[in-house]
């Protein structure tokens, strides 16, 4: 059990939210004003690295306010040393690009260019906040990144660049239109709002479709989360929410009315942008991945893999003998009759073999979570592997191997070898090598 892991107590003390940065010797408020700038830099670096999770970003932000002293120290510590930068954590990585210093921005670009660097999304998010005209092609390249969080940050960067170089809108348009079919809804929404900024108001039909989502992945309410995020941003473009309430069912009569009002506003905006009469305007056809999912039989087992280096995978086995890949409206592949139950039984055997243990490793940016939903799809039984950027040898119990191997076999035969390879890479990045069966 996690609680038994020797040495983890120290990490627990600093990581648990609610227990703020009270480490011995940590200056209290009031004392901070008396510290020299160089001392403040060290203090903020320490808090950004090992303070309570919710204050790390704030501490890193304080470094920005210290200007040249912080800049010089960051260069001294991390220029040419991505390993040290990785250990410092994503909050500090994220502010590098926000310094108006080409050396720190280059350091952030170097981090992004290293596929084994664990905080690549953070590096690009920081760069995107202060995007310069010279960065345009790099942000465009980011749209093809294997990590969804990097692709989403690249969209933000393109919008920032457009403030200095409006010509990037035309150069980025084909890639942004392609991103409307991205497998990740965060990327699709980012692309949609960027396209609207660039005059393609029809792209707002994508977040509008999110308002109709009510999908879950086991207990995860992804449709609800999408409704909140889409509505918040739509309201800024369309004036208000028209009374839509994301906490309520999309089919609630009030929400249907509000949806109709929002759709009309988008239709008028898109018709104007396209230069056509409202009556003649035809809304765009959304790709399947961007449409609300049709009701599906419940999942009976699944695996969620989130690797800070190799990306995210969500695979579920449906009671209708389907293999579903992704969230929202997933890609669905038909398996042989009885195969889903067979795979779920293999996973159940793995659970039984490890006894009562359900958590392995220590909390961090990587997750490998297995689910068996024997009673309810929203109340599955979990088995979790957790880790930070550093590998933990032997993290995954060998008893899970038969399930993984069988699932990989089916992935090759359905989604294809390329997807199976990416899935395997993500698994290996979290739980380590897959033991021989």
């Amino acid at each position, binding site marked *: 059990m*996690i*609680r038994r*892991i020797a040495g*983890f*107590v120290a*990490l*627990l003390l600093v*990581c*648990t*939210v*609610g227990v*703020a*940065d*009270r480490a011995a010797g*940590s200056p*209290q*408020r009031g004392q*901070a004003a008396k510290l020299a700038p160089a001392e403040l830099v060290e203090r903020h670096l320490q*808090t950004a690295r090992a*303070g*309570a*999770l*919710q*204050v*790390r*970003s*704030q*501490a890193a932000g304080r470094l920005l306010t210290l200007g040249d002293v912080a800049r010089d120290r960051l260069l001294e510590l991390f220029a040419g040393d991505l390993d040290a930068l990785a250990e410092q954590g*994503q909050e500090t990585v*994220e502010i590098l690009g926000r310094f108006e210093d080409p050396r720190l921005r280059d350091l952030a670009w170097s981090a992004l260019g290293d596929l084994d660097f664990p905080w690549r*999304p*953070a590096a690009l998010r920081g760069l995107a906040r202060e995007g310069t005209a010279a960065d345009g092609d790099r942000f465009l390249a980011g749209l093809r990144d294997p*990590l969804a*969080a990097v692709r989403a940050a690249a969209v933000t960067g393109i919008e920032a660049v457009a403030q200095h170089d409006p010509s990037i809108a035309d150069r980025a348009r084909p890639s942004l239109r392609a991103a409307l079919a991205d497998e990740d809804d965060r990327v699709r929404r980012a692309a949609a709002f960027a396209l609207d900024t660039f005059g393609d108001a029809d792209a707002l039909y994508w977040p509008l479709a999110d308002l109709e989502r009510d999908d879950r992945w086991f*207990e*995860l*309410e992804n449709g*609800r*989360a999408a409704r*909140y*995020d889409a509505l*918040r941003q739509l309201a800024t473009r369309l004036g208000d929410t028209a009374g839509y*309430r*994301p*906490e*309520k069912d999309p089919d609630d009569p009030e929400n249907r009315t509000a949806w109709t009002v929002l759709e009309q506003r988008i239709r008028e905006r898109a018709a104007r942008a396209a230069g056509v009469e409202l009556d003649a305007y035809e809304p765009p056809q959304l790709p399947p991945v961007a449409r609300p999912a049709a009701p599906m039989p419940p999942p009976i087992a699944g695996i969620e893999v989130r690797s*800070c280096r190799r990306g995210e995978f969500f695979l579920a086995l449906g009671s209708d003998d389907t293999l579903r890949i992704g969230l929202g409206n997933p890609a669905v592949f038909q398996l042989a009759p009885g195969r889903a139950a067979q795979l779920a039984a293999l996973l159940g055997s793995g659970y039984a073999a490890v006894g009562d243990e*359900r*958590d392995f490793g*220590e*909390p961090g*940016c*990587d*997750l490998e*979570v297995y689910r068996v939903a024997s009673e*309810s799809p929203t*109340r*599955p039984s*979990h088995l*979790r592997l957790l880790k930070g950027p550093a590998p933990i040898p032997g993290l995954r119990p060998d008893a899970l191997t038969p399930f993984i191997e069988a699932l990989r076999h089916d992935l090759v035969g359905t989604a294809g070898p390329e997807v199976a390879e990416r899935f395997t890479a993500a698994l290996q990045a979290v739980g380590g090598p897959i033991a021989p069966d």
Partner: protein
Amino acid sequence: MVKRNLRFAAALVAFAPLFSAAGGPAHAWSTARGVPSSLDASEEIIEVDLHQLTSIAWEPGDEVPEEIQRLNGRRVVLRGFMHASVAGDQRKFPMVTEACQCTASLMPSHFVEVDLGPTARTGPRTGQFEVVGRLEIGAVEEDGLVVSLYRLKGRFY
């Protein structure tokens, strides 16, 4: 656990008239059962969508939107997850809409700090659960940094 959640669902159905004390996204339902001893059983409990609290655009120094500020001091029920960072037995833990917020930094507006009280403890929980208690809203600072925006003193429902 399943039985308890069925009871919870039944309570939702029985006591779910729409309530708009918060200007919208909250449902009120009365209960004399499952109320922490520190709470008045006759006081109304509001079901609040955790996403509503955690999806606001907020940075230290910002005001909390009025429709959310109105929930301050109210007894609420929240449904969500324990943040994956929690390990060992804890009196307090961050409640979030998704256990793994792996690709972005955790900000004070992204969670509700649940305080189970001086004698209660909990270990890590992996599934979705509910808590009931009194919600407190407002930035709390330590060493000049905001450590929480939302706090709830209560217990698992």
